[in-house]
């Protein structure tokens, strides 16, 4: 059966930032391939033109006025934040800075 390679699965897991175990890699090799060969079919479909439909609506954007409205207090969101330090959101040190 057609499968993705381990490298391909790991690349996709990298993009998605999802840890995958060796067992999962084996499953993904098959499952991802199945889904990808499904969508491959679209390559052969011929359309009328190159116009793209981003969202299925005929309406155009009405921008909003530049007025302050919906500010929230840090205390209100604090309960949902896994780690805080004072008024800051804490994370393991960022690399690539």
């Amino acid at each position, binding site marked *: 059966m057609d499968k993705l390679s381990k490298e391909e699965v790991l690349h996709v897991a990298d993009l998605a930032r999802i840890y995958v175990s060796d067992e999962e890699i084996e499953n993904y090799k098959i499952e991802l391939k199945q889904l990808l060969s*499904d969508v491959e079919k679209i390559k052969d479909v011929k359309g009328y033109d190159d116009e793209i439909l981003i969202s*299925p609506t005929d309406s155009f954007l009405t921008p909003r006025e530049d007025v302050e409205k919906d500010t929230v207090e840090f205390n209100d969101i604090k309960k949902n934040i896994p780690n805080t330090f004072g008024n800051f959101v804490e994370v*393991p040190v960022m690399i690539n800075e």
Partner: protein
Amino acid sequence: MSKYLSLSIKEINELLKTKKIKPIDLVNEAFEEIESNKDLNCFITLDKENAYNKARELENKEVDNILFGIPIAIKDNIITKHLKTTCASKMLENFVPIYDATVIEKINSKNMIIIGKTNMDEFAMGSTSQTSYFGPPTNPWNKNMIAGGSSGGSASCISARLVPFALGSDTGGSIRQPASYCGIVGMKPTYGRVSRYGLVAFASSLDQIGPMTTNVYNNALLLNAIVGFDEHDLTSVERKEEDFTRLIGEDIKGMKIAVPNFFLSDIISKEIKENVEKIIELLKENGATVDYVDIKYLDNAVNLYQIIAMGEASSNLARFDGIKFGYSYENPENLEDLYRKSRAIGFGKEVKRRIMVGSYLLSGENATTYYNKALSIRDDMRKSFKDTFQNYDLIIGPTTTSTAYNLGEGLDDPRQTFMDDILVIPVNMAGLPGLNIPIGFSKKHLPIGLHIIGDSFEEAKMYKLASFIEGKLNLELNPLKEVAK
């Protein structure tokens, strides 16, 4: 105990107006029904405290609209301030939102009473509600069977008459397909009709919130309550106010109906096809014309959907990173470890699979090869639908290719879940409104649904046809009564 909730909405309203009952009686009944039907697993979170408080508060208020004091269930991917919103995921198991979705504000302004949050597929990804972190809801017509999905909890609780109204969301059939499996009325409105602000995004260009009810009239009433332009959602559309019940009861004579050939092809089960053909005869007998037509790209719709929905989902779900909210892996080795483990543990299998595929489909050259190509064919498909509506009032066909099936089936096939929605997906692609109404039962006595598709913003016309069929068929749609028989 009295059964008020099985009365018609007009009767309930009259009882409330004349103070023969109080909202709290309805709330009591809803919670009792939910309690005695726990095995349906319709709800993730019940909101007893607020529901009772609201009911008491309403006792001193004037009954100012027909939805006043009526219990409603909300799919758990619609944000409710101070009430846990989990999306049926471990990722948001303890997430308490800080604002209300626009539809919730609208529901509150009608003084409806929110009973709780309904079960669903995790992040609405699935067609059986079996991907829920909290276990699947079951089908009241056969409790060994799926309720459909992703709005399975909402469909199941309406079907079992636990509450009279529910909200669902529909990205690729997630309202209409479970409505069909559970024998209820479910509407996915035109894209832009209802604000998506506060709907946890799955695929932004497809998602739409819609009403799920026991009958057509109630459905139109709930749609009346939730539509409208919202400054918080730029894709919502400004329209003149209209009453979606206004055409209900009108004669269907002269209506022009189209049936796409694809909708009666071999992929549809025989029983379902027969039931739909019976409806076609019924419509013809009553003065409607029915023609068979071809709409382009219908057979590509699932692939288009896979590309667009998974692509958008991979991006929409990137915000769940263990930093600002949601599940966070404890004591990670470093930042990368925090990301990867939080997402690996917080998300379930189906969600991860879709994020992975979606990321792949947008990576490198694939964005052009797949995603932009899909957007382009999607534009063509929409035009083909629009062309059909130049000559026809409505399009009909079956909602699903089969009836509900056993729990546990199809879980191992990543493609099954998409094939369940093959008939309902095109509607999301084109941004059109789609409605399911029950039209009969299979030999195993499982509901069969008819899918009515309208042109953009033609929901009232769809309700007109649906209520006509509903009236003519006069089916017994309460599964519990059916069982008692």
